[in-house]
């Protein structure tokens, strides 16, 4: 396994007009892993992928993909990267067979077996016009076209978007199938955390154009912790806690979520003298929501509404 990262960026930044879409991104994606790229809508994931693919010039900063400068990708490098765009756009007037033939003419290493098996997996009829396909079917066709050239690196921009659970499972099965060769790298963005949980080795989390986390999947889950503190009356004011994500106060209860909780954090919380304090384990989805949700102290969103009535 080559030790050079397949993707490496240094201070990669993109402005659209005055708006900064990606801010000083430093990222490394090791070879042979499944890398999930997470973040809310509009946080800069797609822009990052498009910069990495040489489709959008970075405003400043640099990056390499498979060791090549992203500002000057050659056809040879592109042949080694499979790229699945967000909206699964293809030529609507072609039918499934023609789409395959069109794509295959560009790739010397076209693997028709992979193509047919993916197309078969999604039960696509060769004569069906692309514009008549459902969203999931189109995604399947796109996937087949992307996988058949056997790329070293697979860049998938929200591949599960708009797919039903069955199609999504097919997608994930294909991704896992792809990892059979250990030097294949998959870089994908997604909102489906259950999928991420199944397939990802590493995750990177984008929050409002800034990369906030890049770590093994398990590490993330371990780092985000929630504490529940019970009080006799109204919970006291919260002291300053390092790495605080959220504090939700309800009648007689205080829930505190933070990252990198340690003994010091627990001591700080204990100093509030709760009747009872316990640590609640968080699933990936809850950890993610807490991580990217609104920061700071707040009361439960619905109780505020009730108070107003």
């Amino acid at each position: 396994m080559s030790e050079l990262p397949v993707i490496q960026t240094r201070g990669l930044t993109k402005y659209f007009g005055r708006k900064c879409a990606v801010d000083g991104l430093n990222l490394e994606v090791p070879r042979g892993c499944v890398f999930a790229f997470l973040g809310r809508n509009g946080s800069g994931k797609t822009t990052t992928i498009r910069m990495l693919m040489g489709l959008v010039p970075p405003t400043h900063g640099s990056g390499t993909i498979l060791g090549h400068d992203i500002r000057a990708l050659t056809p040879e490098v592109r042949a080694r990267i499979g790229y699945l765009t967000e909206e699964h756009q293809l030529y609507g007037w072609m039918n499934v067979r023609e789409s395959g033939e069109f794509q295959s003419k560009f790739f010397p290493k076209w693997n028709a077996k992979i193509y047919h098996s993916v197309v078969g997996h999604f039960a696509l009829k060769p004569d069906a016009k692309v514009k008549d396909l459902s969203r999931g079917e189109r995604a399947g066709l796109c996937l087949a076209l992307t996988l058949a050239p056997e790329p070293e690196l697979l860049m998938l921009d929200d591949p599960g978007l708009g797919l039903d659970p069955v199609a999504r499972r097919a997608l994930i099965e294909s991704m896992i199938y792809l990892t059979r060769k250990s030097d294949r790298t998959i870089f994908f963005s997604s909102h489906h955390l259950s999928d991420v949980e199944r397939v990802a080795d590493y995750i990177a989390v984008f929050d409002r154009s800034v990369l906030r986390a890049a770590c093994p999947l398990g590490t993330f889950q371990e780092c985000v912790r929630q504490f529940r503190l019970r009080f006799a009356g109204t919970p006291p004011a919260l002291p300053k806690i390092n790495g605080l994500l959220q504090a939700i106060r309800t009648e007689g209860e205080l829930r505190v979520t933070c990252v990198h909780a340690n003994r010091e954090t627990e001591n700080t919380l204990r100093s509030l003298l709760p009747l009872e304090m316990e640590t609640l384990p968080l699933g990936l989805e809850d950890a993610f929501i807490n991580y990217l949700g609104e920061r700071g102290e707040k009361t439960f969103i619905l109780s505020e509404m009730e108070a107003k009535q």
Partner: protein
Amino acid sequence: MATVFNINTGSHTPIYAQITHQARHAVLTGRLKVGDQLPSVRALAEELVVNPNTVARAYAELSREGLLESRAGRGVFITQKRKVFSRAEGWRRLEPQLHALIGEAMTLDFTPEELREAFEEQLGKWKKTKGGE
């Protein structure tokens, strides 16, 4: 090689932990016996539709515990359990489970005596099925 694993995503238990728990449980309940072969990492990953590295990590942990043994070129097998944890480590691992059990029993209004009796009874049953192992 019956499927003994059942993965739930969205749970607060990571997938690799689900695999190790379920493997231990299966051995404990006798669904897996010494010498039984487990699917390869690749096969299990594709069966469960999870990342092979996750399965590998679970298998690695089970091997460390001495529950599994990987025989070169032949596959992964359940082995005679060797003692791999120190007593203290054992207690450390057991304690949270006991804690959770007692907490649950108390919320369901069992008395400590009732609990103690039930515990004895279950232990007795378990000894019988295992044949005084």
